[in-house]
C-alpha cells in the first residue's frame, strides 16, 4: 500500500512541483514542501477513493501544505511573497514562454491563496467545480464565489504587471 503511494507520488511529481510553484511555494522551499506533501499522502493514502481522479486529491493536499508553509514562512521571513522563477535554469528554453509563466506566477501571487487555489484547479487543471469544492472542503457556492473573485483579481493583477512592464519583469 505504501509502495503504491510512493509510485503515485513519483508519477505525479511534475504535477506537484507545478502546483506548488503556482501556489506560491518558493523554489528554495520546493523540496521540503514536496516531502511534507508525501508524508501527508502516506498518512492519508487509505482514505483516497480510487474511483476518483488522483490529481484533485493531490492538489487538496498540496494546497493545505502550501498554506501551512506560507504562514510559517511569512512569519519567519517578512516579505518575499513572490519569488521570480529560478534564473539558473528555466523550465523551457523559449524566452517568451518563460516570460509568460513569470507573468502568470507574478499575477497569481497577488491573489489570496484560497482563491488562487480555486482558479488554478479550474482554469489550469480543468477540474470541475463540484470536485474542487469537495477537495477543498468548501461549499459549492463558496467555490464559485472564489472563482469569480479570483478571475477579477487575476485580470487586475495582470493589467498592473503589464503596465509595470519591464520594471517588474
Amino acid at each position, binding site marked *: 500500500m505504501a509502495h503504491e503511494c510512493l509510485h503515485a507520488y513519483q508519477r505525479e511529481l511534475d504535477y506537484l512541483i507545478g502546483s506548488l510553484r503556482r501556489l506560491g511555494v518558493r523554489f528554495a522551499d520546493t523540496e521540503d514542501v514536496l516531502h511534507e506533501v508525501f*508524508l501527508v499522502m502516506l498518512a492519508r493514502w487509505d482514505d483516497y477513493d480510487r474511483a476518483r481522479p488522483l490529481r484533485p486529491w493531490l492538489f487538496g493536499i498540496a494546497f493545505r501544505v502550501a498554506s501551512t508553509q506560507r504562514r510559517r514562512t511569512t512569519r519567519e521571513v517578512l516579505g518575499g511573497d513572490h519569488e521570480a522563477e529560478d534564473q539558473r535554469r528555466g523550465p523551457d528554453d523559449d524566452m517568451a514562454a518563460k516570460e509568460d*509563466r513569470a507573468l502568470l506566477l507574478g499575477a497569481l501571487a497577488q491573489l489570496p491563496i484560497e482563491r488562487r487555489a480555486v482558479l488554478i484547479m479550474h482554469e489550469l487543471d480543468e477540474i470541475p467545480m463540484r470536485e474542487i469544492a469537495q477537495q477543498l472542503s468548501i461549499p459549492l457556492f463558496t467555490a464559485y464565489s472564489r472563482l469569480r473573485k479570483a478571475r477579477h483579481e487575476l485580470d487586475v493583477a495582470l493589467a498592473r504587471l503589464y503596465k509595470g512592464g519591464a520594471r517588474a519583469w
Partner: protein
Amino acid sequence: MLGRRPLSDRARALLERERERAHGWEADEAIKSRVMRRARSALERDRPSGVGLRLVGSGLATVTPRRWLRPLPLVAAALAAAGLAAASAGLYSSSSREPEEKPWPPANVAPPPRPRVAVGGALLPAAPASQAPAERAPEPRPAPATTAGNDSTRSLNVKQYATELALLEPARSSLSRGDYSAALSALGQHRREFPNGQLSQEREALRVRALWGLGQKPAALAAARAFRKRYPRSALLSWLKDQGDQAP
C-alpha cells in the same frame, strides 16, 4: 451566474498557453532524485523521517530534516545521555516505558467542541470519522511494540504518529487562536487515546500553554513542574521559557 465572470482576453490567452505547457515544470533530475530518496527513506523508517513537532512560531507543524541534519549527532548524543541518566536515576520503572501518568486535575473548561479543521489551516485533515470523539471508545490505545524490521509494526507506527498529529493539530491551532478551552479539550482527547503516545511530550508542553492561557496559573505551574520533572532534558523546555511573560 456565479463563477461565470469572463476573463479578459489577455488572461485567457495566458492561461491557455500555460495549460498547453502543462508539462513544462520538469525540475531537474537531481531535485527529483533527492525528493524520491527522501520519500523512500521515510517509508523505511519506523518513525516517518522528517516529521517533527515544531512548537515555536507556527506551532505544531511538520518539519523536514534537511536543516536539522547538521546538529543531529549532538542531539543523538544528548538523547543517549538523557536516557542513561534517567535510567540510572530510576525514573523508569521496571519496564522501559514511560510511567503511567496521574490523571489531570479537572480544568475549568467548557464541554469539548468537536475538533474542526479549517480549510487550509491544518496540515493533516481531521481524523477519520471512525476516530471522532463521540464514536470512539474511551479505551487508551497501547503504544505498539517496536520490532525492528517488522513492516506491519512500522506501518502501525507511522499511522499512529499521523493519527496523533491529527489529534494534536486542532489543539495547536486553537492555541494560536487563543481558544484555550478548545485546546485543552483536544489535548484531553489525545491523552485518552494515547496516554503514552509518541507525542506525549509535545501534548504536555501544549497543555502548559493552554492552562496558562486560560488563567489557571497554579495548574499551569504544576503542569510545567511535572513536565520538567518528566522530561528534564526536553528541547521543549526552552520553548516554554521562550514564551517569556506569557508562560511559566
